[in-house]
């Protein structure tokens, strides 16, 4: 008190100003009487100073211990007689009824009597706290001096223990061994259960009782983990909740669908969290959540995901909210969300394989319908061509379906799965798996066809943005493809036809596409494609150059033939796949006999080219070219009898041009047979047949008349020039049957794959050699692994093939086995 007071407590002299001896018993009588008044709430009659002075004196006279003991005994007596008695009176029979036989009393009765009991207890506890704090105030000097010096708990603390022992741990009644604490727990739990069932309960009241439990300790040391709330109530609460939710989840699984279950479960979790805030202690939130999640989710998520109304159903019916719920639930108990992931993957696989099968079925369906009146190979050939068409449709449908599927799952992923990256990977893998599934080897071809279709028709009239979207979609699909080399092969082939036959809607878009592929797959993937574009632009320059050159010659022949030429690098362009379909490997393609006028131009260009690039060999591919011919048809009676000469500009294939020119030199009534045409032109039979079909059979472009008139072309069929040809347009395009990019027939596919496999073998060998050159000595297993890694961006090599290639390299003495070691190889420079 005095400034500068040190830690040392200054004691008043033992004998001094208040020298008179204290009569303990008399003083205690006064104090006890006053305490009674305090307990009965009559404190205003008492002088605090007087009571304090009495207690002060007693302690001063070293009677502290006696005082402490007396107060303790007094409080114990008070609690065990007055307070306990009051409380016991609140215990109605319905409350005491065996919890097992609850049925004997109604819920409402139990709730009312429970609340009465809680109120009584809360009151008793509140009174006890207030009284004890007053007592502690009066006995302040005793706490300060006696309790501290003798290491006794303060009287307040001691009184709290008394409340625990004398009230909470006391039996319900002389004949009933259960204690009040147990009953309290039971009543609170029962109230909570009522709330779970939809009743309204007095949360505040319960919270007060919970606070009491939290303020009391099971032991006398007041250690943190010994709060009655934790050791007694919380345990029971978690236990009963576990039982309850276990049963509820079972019931819900039987009664409701997955969506409802998820909603309910989420609601329950929130309810319990709210309950911890409003009714119980916040510290329980985490524990109860764990219990609820364990019972409602962890044990059930598998059933939930796989049940009839589970993830499968939700996906099929676009139940975004429910998917979100089930995702959320799964995420609560499992960071990896494995149940939902698995279900999603299963669904993608199933739907993907369905799409695959549909495409396969669509492309195969017409096949087993051979013409019953099998007229010959030609008829079946036509149907086959039709099939090819249908297969193209199937291919594009397949791509559309896959894209739709991807859109669907992307949407689910965004809206329901919070753009979860794990699920993204999982979904990606599933898409990749079904797209590359071994039962469906056509993904690469179909995707390339899809792009082909768009390049030729699809993007017509679309805005840049829309085109960009289409391209991006295509890129998405390409990313899934494992056999990128096969895709490249198809793409090259299709691109080749588009470029040469000028089928692309826009060159810009073509380049854009290649640019996108370069970004996604790396420049090595697109280098050949780039080279193709380069060839095209060089050819353009060449054509112009040649034109100037010819003009420079001063030859002003009005019948001069304009030549437009594409010079293609043989290694870059997949020309072998462009050979006449069904011709097989035809390395020494017979040179077609061009008419003299054309041949002159051809030689002229060869000369011009040889001057510019000496040493280069030009091979002419007339099967790929086209020609514009001006044709004059003789006058025939027109509408109203007017005779009119008709001029048409015919756009035909090079072969067709050659064929038509034959008829130029022929009198109108003369005919040529198929064999004669073939002999004169040296056009490969199949190409000739197709060209004749389009010139003589196709209804709109019947420039020749065929005898007999039938769809099939036979060696001894005769052809006449159709003088009566009628066309409604000046410009007429004579399509050649089956020039578009179509799905390959099985034989073509086999060839493509064979070629691809051969390429793969070279690439694999190259990879092996590159690795071995770097490592010099390398173990077998590692070598295989590294090879697979190196090739992964192009395709997934088979181990057996790698092994074969290693053997072959050993045979050719690029490698040798290291002696004394079972599986090491050494590189031989």
């Amino acid at each position: 008190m005095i400034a500068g007071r040190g830690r040392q407590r200054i004691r008043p002299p033992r004998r001094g100003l208040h020298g008179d001896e204290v009569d303990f018993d008399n003083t205690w009588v006064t104090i006890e009487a006053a305490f009674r008044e305090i307990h009965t709430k009559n404190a205003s009659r008492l002088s605090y100073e007087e009571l304090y002075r009495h207690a002060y004196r007693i302690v001063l006279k070293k009677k502290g211990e006696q005082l402490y003991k007396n107060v303790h005994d007094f409080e114990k007596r008070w609690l065990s007689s007055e307070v306990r008695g009051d409380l016991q009176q609140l215990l109605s029979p319905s409350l005491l009824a065996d919890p097992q036989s609850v049925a004997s009393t109604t819920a409402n009765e139990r709730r009312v009597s429970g609340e009465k009991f809680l109120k009584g207890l809360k009151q008793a506890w509140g009174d006890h706290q207030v009284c004890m704090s007053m007592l502690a105030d009066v006995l302040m000097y005793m706490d300060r001096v006696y309790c501290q010096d003798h290491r006794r708990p303060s009287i307040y603390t001691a009184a709290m223990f008394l409340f625990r022992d004398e009230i909470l741990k006391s039996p319900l009644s002389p004949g009933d061994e259960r204690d009040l604490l147990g009953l309290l727990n039971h009543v609170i739990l029962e109230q909570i259960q009522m709330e779970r069932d939809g009743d309204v309960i007095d949360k505040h009241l319960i919270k007060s009782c919970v606070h009491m439990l939290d303020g009391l300790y099971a032991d006398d040391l007041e250690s943190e983990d010994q709060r009655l709330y934790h050791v007694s109530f919380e345990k029971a609460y978690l236990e009963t909740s576990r039982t309850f939710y276990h049963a509820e989840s079972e019931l819900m699984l039987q009664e409701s669908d997955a969506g409802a279950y998820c909603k309910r479960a989420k609601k329950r979790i929130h309810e319990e969290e709210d309950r911890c805030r409003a009714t119980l202690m916040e510290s329980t939130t985490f524990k109860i959540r764990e219990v609820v999640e364990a019972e409602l989710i962890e044990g059930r998520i598998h059933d939930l995901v796989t049940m009839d109304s589970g993830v499968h159903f939700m996906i099929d019916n676009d139940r975004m909210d429910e998917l979100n719920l089930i995702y959320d639930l799964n995420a609560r108990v499992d960071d990896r969300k494995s149940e939902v992931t698995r279900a999603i993957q299963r669904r993608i696989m199933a739907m993907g394989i369905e799409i695959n099968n549909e495409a396969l079925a669509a492309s195969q369906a017409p096949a087993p319908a051979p013409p019953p009146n099998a007229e010959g190979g030609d008829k079946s050939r036509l149907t086959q061509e039709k099939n090819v068409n249908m297969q193209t449709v199937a291919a594009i449908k397949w791509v559309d379906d896959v894209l739709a599927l991807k859109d669907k799952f992307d949407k689910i992923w965004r809206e329901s799965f919070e753009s979860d990256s794990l699920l993204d990977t999982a979904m990606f893998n599933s898409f990749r798996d079904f797209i590359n599934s071994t039962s469906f080897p056509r993904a690469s071809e179909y995707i390339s066809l899809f792009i082909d279709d768009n390049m030729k028709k699809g993007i017509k009239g679309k805005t840049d943005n829309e085109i960009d979207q289409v391209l991006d979609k295509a890129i998405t699909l390409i990313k899934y493809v494992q056999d990128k080399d096969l895709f490249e092969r198809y793409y090259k082939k299709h691109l080749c036809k588009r470029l040469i036959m000028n089928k692309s809607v826009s060159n810009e878009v073509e380049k854009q596409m290649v640019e996108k592929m370069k970004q996604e797959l790396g420049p090595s993937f697109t280098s050949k494609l780039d080279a193709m574009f380069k060839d095209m632009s060089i050819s353009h320059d060449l054509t112009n150059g040649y034109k100037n050159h010819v003009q420079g010659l001063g030859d002003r022949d009005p019948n001069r033939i304009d030549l437009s030429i594409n010079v293609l690098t043989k290694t870059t362009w997949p020309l072998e796949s462009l050979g006449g379909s069904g011709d097989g490997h035809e390395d020494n393609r017979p040179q077609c006999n061009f008419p003299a006028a054309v041949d002159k131009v051809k030689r002229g260009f060869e000369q011009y080219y040889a001057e510019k690039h000496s040493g280069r060999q030009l091979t002419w591919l007339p099967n790929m070219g086209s020609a514009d011919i001006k044709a004059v048809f003789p006058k025939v009676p027109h509408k109203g009898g007017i005779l009119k000469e008709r001029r048409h500009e015919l756009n035909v294939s090079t072969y067709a041009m050659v064929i038509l020119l034959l008829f130029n030199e022929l009198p109108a009534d003369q005919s040529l047979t198929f064999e004669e045409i073939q002999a004169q032109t040296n056009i490969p039979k199949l190409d000739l047949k197709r060209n004749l079909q389009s010139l003589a059979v196709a209804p709109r472009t019947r420039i020749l008349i065929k005898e007999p008139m039938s769809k099939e072309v036979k060696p001894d069929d005769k052809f006449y020039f159709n003088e009566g040809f009628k066309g409604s347009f000046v410009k007429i395009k004579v399509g050649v049957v089956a020039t578009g990019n179509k799905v390959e027939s099985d034989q073509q596919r086999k060839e493509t794959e064979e070629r691809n496999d051969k390429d793969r073998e070279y690439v694999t060998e190259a990879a092996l050699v590159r690795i071995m050159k770097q490592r010099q000595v390398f173990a077998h297993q590692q070598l295989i692994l590294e090879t697979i890694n190196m090739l992964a961006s192009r395709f997934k090599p088979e181990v057996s093939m790698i092994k074969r290639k290693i053997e072959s390299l050993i045979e050719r003495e690029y490698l040798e086995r290291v002696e004394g070691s079972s599986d090491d190889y050494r590189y031989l420079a």
Partner: protein
Amino acid sequence: MAADRKVTDYVTLVSNDGYEFKILRSAACIAGTIKKALDPTSGFREMEQNRVELPTINGVTLEKVCEYLYYNQKHAESKDVPDMEIQPELCLELLIAADYLDGE
């Protein structure tokens, strides 16, 4: 408990020889014993009357006590507080009073 209207700004401290000191409640409550006596939640007589009789302390000492209570309140927040002047003959009685009143 007792009604709040009885909580006044000033309280009266009474010495054993009948002197009354009216001092600020906030200052008086620096002394633990007085604070408890006036605690509104307990509702003792002192609180009802806003008056604390201190029969163990005489007027001279109580005056010094009051002086100290104000002194303490004034300097509660500051540092390097000058010592309070205390006559030597008052020392012992002040010590006893301090022990009795403080509680802290």
